[in-house]
């Protein structure tokens, strides 16, 4: 039954009782409401705010396993239908888009005009731009192109009380007032609902190449030395991603540590850089080069690893987790080795990759729930030795409390709490989804 308190907020067909009360990833809601417009979002929030109802937000659902220590809220608000491109200013290289638009839909549209959003987050046909930004997701190419915080120039936000506030603007350079965009990027929807996003675009590269460098197992030192050398060279790699042997095997057929180095530029410049790689090849390393469509397809496949919110199985032994590790750039190599060594110790299977030039690694874990818990703790301890952190970007609901999705609270936690309290004084939005239980 639809709760009578929702009567008249939105048309009946947009509200239904949620039959998925015990979703393994939690973050559900008793009533499922579909928003088709910003006004819908605003009405639902204004209602929830004045009636002290809690609201969880969902779009593509790929990040349903990311954070959240409450199984369900009163309302699960879906933005999946609130999609489409509001404005694409081709000459200004900017685009304004609704949050439920998937990355693939955006990519396809922009492609027609020779442009793109330089965000290579995973599961592009499922992940929505709103979700990617709220969760601050990114891929290997952030090395050269940056992440959401470098690309988003404006938003419209529905605050928990239903009021709409614009942040930033529609121009690529803007320092008027506080850079409020930043507050919402990566805030997991705890400060307001992003109802519109204006983002900077880039032209499609004229030419692209991918150098795959395969190293015999145990040659971490060679990888390190080569990486330092290329980072210090004339080359401008778009990615310098290290793949652990198990993920490399699926991508290349060879169970070896593999570096995926992308170049995107004029053809001559790409070939020149590949040539640099060829002439600086470490002993025993093997260099495979892919161009254009082959390179694009390789990356396309690469974006389909790890849990996506839809593949969690009933079988306990195949429980899945995804970890985001942040570290100093070169410590990515250390963490990769640790990820594999600890996997053996804790009886879990691990696929992992990390950006040697940008410091973010992704580790996908499969195994028994208790092994995932002990693995994550052990990895966290290891990573912390070098000031890094581990955030669980995917975990079954029942494991979240035990593992601690976000790790320790930062020393300035009071400021984070203060910001949350300011924006959402009644704590109705995505409660307990964020750092320190915010």
């Amino acid at each position, binding site marked *: 039954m639809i709760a009578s308190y929702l009567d008249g907020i939105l048309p009946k067909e947009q509200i239904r009782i949620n039959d998925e009360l015990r979703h393994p990833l939690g973050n559900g809601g008793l009533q499922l409401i579909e928003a088709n417009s910003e006004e819908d979002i605003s009405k639902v929030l204004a209602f929830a705010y004045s009636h002290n109802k809690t609201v969880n937000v969902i779009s593509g659902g790929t990040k349903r396993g990311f954070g959240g220590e409450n199984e369900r809220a009163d309302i699960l608000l879906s933005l999946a239908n609130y999609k489409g491109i509001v404005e694409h200013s081709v000459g200004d290289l900017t685009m304004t888009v609704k949050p439920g638009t998937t990355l693939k839909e955006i990519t396809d549209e922009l492609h027609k005009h020779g442009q793109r959003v330089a965000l290579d987050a995973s599961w592009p046909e499922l992940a929505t731009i709103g979700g990617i930004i709220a969760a601050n997701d990114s891929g290997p190419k952030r090395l050269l192109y940056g992440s959401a915080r470098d690309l988003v120039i404006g938003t419209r936000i529905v605050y928990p009380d239903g009021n709409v506030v614009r942040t930033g603007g529609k121009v690529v350079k803007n320092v008027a007032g506080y850079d409020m965009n930043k507050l919402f990027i990566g805030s997991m929807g705890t400060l307001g609902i992003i109802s519109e996003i204006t983002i900077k675009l880039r032209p499609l590269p004229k030419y692209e190449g991918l150098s795959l460098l395969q190293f015999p197992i145990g040659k971490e030192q060679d990888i390190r030395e080569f990486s330092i050398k290329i980072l210090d060279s004339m080359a401008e790699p778009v990615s310098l991603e290290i793949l652990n042997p198990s993920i490399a095997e699926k991508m290349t057929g060879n169970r070896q540590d593999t570096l995926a180095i992308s170049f995107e530029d004029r053809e001559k410049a790409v070939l020149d850089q590949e040539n640099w790689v060829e002439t600086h090849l470490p002993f025993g390393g093997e260099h495979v080069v892919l161009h254009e469509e082959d390179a694009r397809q390789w990356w396309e496949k690469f974006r389909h690893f790890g849990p996506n919110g839809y593949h969690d199985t009933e079988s306990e032994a195949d429980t899945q987790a995804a970890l985001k590790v942040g570290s100093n750039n070169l410590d990515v190599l250390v963490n990769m080795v640790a990820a594999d060594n600890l996997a053996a110790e804790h009886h879990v299977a691990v696929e992992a990759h990390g950006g040697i030039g940008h410091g973010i690694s992704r580790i996908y874990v499969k195994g028994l729930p208790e092994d995932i818990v002990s693995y994550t703790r052990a990895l966290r301890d290891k990573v912390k030795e070098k000031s890094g952190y581990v955030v669980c970007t995917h975990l079954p609901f029942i494991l979240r409390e035990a593992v601690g999705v976000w790790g320790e609270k930062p020393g300035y936690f009071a400021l*984070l709490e203060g910001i949350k309290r300011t924006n959402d004084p009644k704590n109705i939005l995505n409660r307990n989804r964020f750092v320190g239980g915010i």
Partner: protein
Amino acid sequence: MNRKKHRREKPDAVVQRLMNIVGEREVFYLKEDLISYECDGYTMSKGMPKAVVFVKSTEHVSAVVRCLNEEKIPYIARGAGTGLSGGATPLGGEVIISLVRMKRMLHLDLENRKAVVEPGFINLKLTQSISDKGYYYAPDPSSQYACTIGGNVAENSGGAHCLKYGVTTNHILGLEVVLPNGEVIEIGEEGIPDQPGYDLLGLLTGSEGTLGIVTKITVKVLKNPEGKKTVLAYYDDINDASQAVSEIIAAGIIPAALEMMDSIAIEGVESAAYPVGHPRDIAAFLLIEVDGIAAGIDDQIDEILTVCKHNNVREVKVAKDEAERGLWWANRKMGFGAMGAISPDYLVQDGVIPRTRLPEVLGKIAEISKKYELRIANIFHAGDGNLHPLILFDASIPGQSERAAKAGSECLKVCADVGGSITGEHGVGIEKSAEMRFIFSDAEMTAQTNIRAVFNPEDLLNPGKLFPQPGQCVEIKQAGQGDRSTVPVNAMGRGD
């Protein structure tokens, strides 16, 4: 600093307390010492500080802040004072905390591409101290030989090369901050990206010194590009130049810099220290730089030359060597300062527009110039639509300062009306606080001041800036000729 002066006044109790923290010689409180702290590079508004305190460490900053909190005295952080919106200008009675003596580089880690500096470290010095190793710091405001990285963080400064490489916020990895309660926090520890929690790094950058005082900064450093080529293109019609800008971008080229100057601006730079010999009868020139992998540059230059020619360029040339390139840039970077050669005073504006609206906006600025009977020179970062209309006036002629301020405000209105912004890199400060209303509703500004209250609940840190004050109207204090020695813009004789 001349401390031998005869003391006429005794320090009051607050000044005495500050002296106890940093040392007697490190506090200015006499009027003659305070005069040069009446304003920053924006000289249309001035106020007398209560004192200036020169701190040497984070502990100093924290102790000074705690003391002023107890005394309920407002205070302002100050770097080099080159700000162009009055951010470091007292409204009257604030204590200025000067960070210029905190100017060390603390750590350099090229393998992880980062450097840690104190806030008073000069922007250009960073590039200079790593260039022999082939690295540089990308944000390059034209004031870079003088401005501090702390000031850059506060203003989220840009520069000619931010079209390709981004502005300050894209290069800040970590900050140590003294909060307005004196507490010291570290965000973005060790410069590791995406730390769990709201992005305070992004929020603090560009907050114009109203949320905290930055005492340590971890920045990204970049490898020098392998190749670089620079093009100069002269146009008889500014619309052709604008069209060329759009077509270069549409061709999928992202130049490192794409700058434009109109005829009045050219008159200025040709009368200043680095004349290039630009023809005096052209309507505008474009200065275009492409950098990156050397093997890919010639093709891009060829395309740019084709676009320029296709848009009726009178003459276009590629710099033949580093000396010529350097001269072109020196001439361009003189921009602001050069106005001093053709006008007694000038007001710099800083609007941003969608780059495709350039011709239309230039037309409107010309109308404003006519309406107020003031010449307006235009210098802009054309590639990202960041305009710097320079309104030329003579403060000694009654009414001209007021007219200049009004003309400036109207230029910003034009930018706001085409969907742009009132500031791209110079900040709001005192100058544009009323104009915030051009782009934000009251509710939107309240959302921002609410965030300020989380950090700065008593509003003792840099009060009265950034947001419109109740009942605010444009108020101008005459920047009299006699004060010219305190005008950093002219004193430094360079500009962007």
